[in-house]
């Protein structure tokens, strides 16, 4: 009981399922074209919550200075999220009371089939060759549907700007990648909790670490399949990803797949409705026509009955006048004929 029920229902109206399959295939094609795209593996078991990545991100992206300095670790006591002035943040979690805390870095996960890109009605987001999901502020209308769509709650908005508000999120340091440099945060991490590389190789590395340290990690690479997969992958110490505030129930269906059924119904609706509606219109017109001809039939029946009555009366009169003289007969016939003609006229008028 998942997708395309909408289409399935319309199918009842005689729509084929073919168009749904094409819509899906087209969106999957985008991903297959990026086998060598880069990504980052974050290992939460190595992160010490030093906020060096936050500082580096702030610097390489020329973001405004924060209220509290990056070496102030009391910031970690509150749960934070990314915002328009911060592309990445580190949060502290205590999965087991009494045991040391675990830290998690949060930023855009650079989805393989990004919900933000699928949602944007001006195509301001693009999954690029490098693996980064990049945003073009020059076309953005500011509808913020990308923010509604992102399952990781990443895009933030410049609500305080009246004329040039932008959607803000981690760019995977796309400008630096294109120069052949590492993302700022990856370069700054003192514990190698962040590794940049090709996604495929990162997956191998992640599974090697999980397999090589029995009992240490959750046996799952977060982002391998979530929402169709992400370029930014996460592995975490036991007990769970949920303990680090991560949604473990996202499922593997990608964002474009979630909406492709409804989109595929568009040509169906646009094609079927005119036919259906014109048909209905024709039926209602036909009903009117039938009613009209029934009325006419009733009228002519009435006329026919009237002249039949007149004829009957005539023969009756003739029988009565059987013995009477011819003149009288003639008179009567004339009279009866006149009466019949009159009755006929009246019938027509009715």
């Amino acid at each position, binding site marked *: 009981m998942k997708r395309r029920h909408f289409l399935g229902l319309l199918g009842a109206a005689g729509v084929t399922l073919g168009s749904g399959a094409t819509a899906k295939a087209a969106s999957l094609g985008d991903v297959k074209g990026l086998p060598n795209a880069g990504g980052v593996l974050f290992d939460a078991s190595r992160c010490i919550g030093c906020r060096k990545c936050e500082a580096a991100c702030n610097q390489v992206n020329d973001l405004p200075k924060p209220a509290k300095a990056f070496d102030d670790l009391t910031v970690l006591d509150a749960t934070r999220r990314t915002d328009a002035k911060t592309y990445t943040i580190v949060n502290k979690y205590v999965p087991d009371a009494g045991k040391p805390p675990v830290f998690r870095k949060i930023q855009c996960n650079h989805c393989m089939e990004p919900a933000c890109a699928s949602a944007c009605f001006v195509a301001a987001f693009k999954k690029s060759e490098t693996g980064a999901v990049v945003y073009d502020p020059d076309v953005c*209308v500011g509808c913020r549907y990308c923010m509604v769509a992102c*399952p990781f709650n990443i895009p933030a908005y410049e609500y305080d700007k009246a004329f040039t*508000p932008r959607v803000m999120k981690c760019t995977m340091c796309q400008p630096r990648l294109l120069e052949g440099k590492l993302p700022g945060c990856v370069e700054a991490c003192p514990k190698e909790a962040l590794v940049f590389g090709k996604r495929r190789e990162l997956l191998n590395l992640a599974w090697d670490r999980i397999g090589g340290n029995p009992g240490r990690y959750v046996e799952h690479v977060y982002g391998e399949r979530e929402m169709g997969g992400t370029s930014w992958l996460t592995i975490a110490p036991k007990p769970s990803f949920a303990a680090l505030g991560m949604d473990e129930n996202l499922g593997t269906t990608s964002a474009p797949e979630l909406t492709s059924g409804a989109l595929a119904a568009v040509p169906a609706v646009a094609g079927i409705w005119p036919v259906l509606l014109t048909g209905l219109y024709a039926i209602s017109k036909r009903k009117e026509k039938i009613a009209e001809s029934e009325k006419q039939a009733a009228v002519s029946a009435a006329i026919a009955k009237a002249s039949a009555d007149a004829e009957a009366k005539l023969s009756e009169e003739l029988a009565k006048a059987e013995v009477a003289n011819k003149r009288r007969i003639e008179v009567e016939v004339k009279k009866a004929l006149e009466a019949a003609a009159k009755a006929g006229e009246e019938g027509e008028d009715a």
Partner: protein
Amino acid sequence: MSTETQKGTLFTPWNIVAGIILAAGVVVTIMRFTMGLGAVTNLSDNNPWGIWIGFDLLCGVALAAGGYTTSAACYIFGFKRFHGAVRPAILTAFLGYALVVFALNYDVGRPWRLPYPIFYQQGTTSILFEVGLCVFIYLTVLFLEYLPAALEWKRGFDKYRDILVKLTMGLTILGVILSTLHQSSLGALYLIAPSKLHPLWYTPYLPVMFFMSSMFAGMSMVIFEGTLSHKHFHHKMDDEYNLGYEDLQMAFSKAAAWIMAGYLAMKLLGLAMDNRWQFLGTGYGAWWLVEVVGFVALPCYAYAVAYRDRNLKLARFTALWTVLGIVLNRFNVSLVAFNWQLPSVDRYFPSAGEIIISLFVVTIGVIAFRFIVTRMPIFYVHPAYKDSSH
């Protein structure tokens, strides 16, 4: 309430309230466009959409559905006796959509770019693109459907008026197609966020549900709006309108009862197929029952009773009840059940500024409606066009 006729009473309660709302609206408008969204709304990074989407867009579009339901009933299904109701419904729909688009200018960050998705760069994978395109075209269609009334008011355009009247059938069909598409797409908008919308409201049926509910929302609005209009614009109405009007209220009560029953069945079907019964025991479950039993099942029954007993009073009361139910449903999907997993401190509640703008928009709509129906042939057939088929 009707002030035009009572000279010298400019300070009626309605006028005073409307004046205050308009003044406050102007102030908030200036703030919004000089200081940005943050200055007047409670929107946040976790709650990018507030009541300007949940009420102005979602409810606005659903409640303007009377336009396509009435004109389809009259022109396509051949219920000619509803002819008198078509113009008021088209006018209401046209104003409704115009205001939806007007209100969107407040919500989006860079409103002057609103034509971009249609004319500059198309995000065709986006449900919002479909919504935008359909609303844009449908607004044009509604304008053309409304235009004959305006052209009969300012005489001398008979040529254009006659052309438009000839297009009625085509425009009606186009209107039904466009309405089907965007009414359902508004529900489909939320398909992309299964992790954010509570499982009782998230279902793959969302598009169909939004479409079905738009039908009875539109019919209820026609009954409700007709009742109000009767109170305030009775002197404007001619016999054709008045004769068809009660008939229409009854017919729409019956139709709404049937569609609501189907809608109810779909709600339960979705619940059963995804096996989501366990959620009914939670707080959200109770709220879901309030919506589904209190604002779908009961009014559905009430409509059926009203039709059986030819009880106009009950039908009109039920219309208001159903309209409130639609508003509740759209609020639930877009605000209450959305982001349900967020801690309560991060949840959204509208600011005074947002509420003022929503009231502002509704007030402008009522004023525009009054302006038009007191001047143009909406509730009556213009004497010069008595024999015309439109």
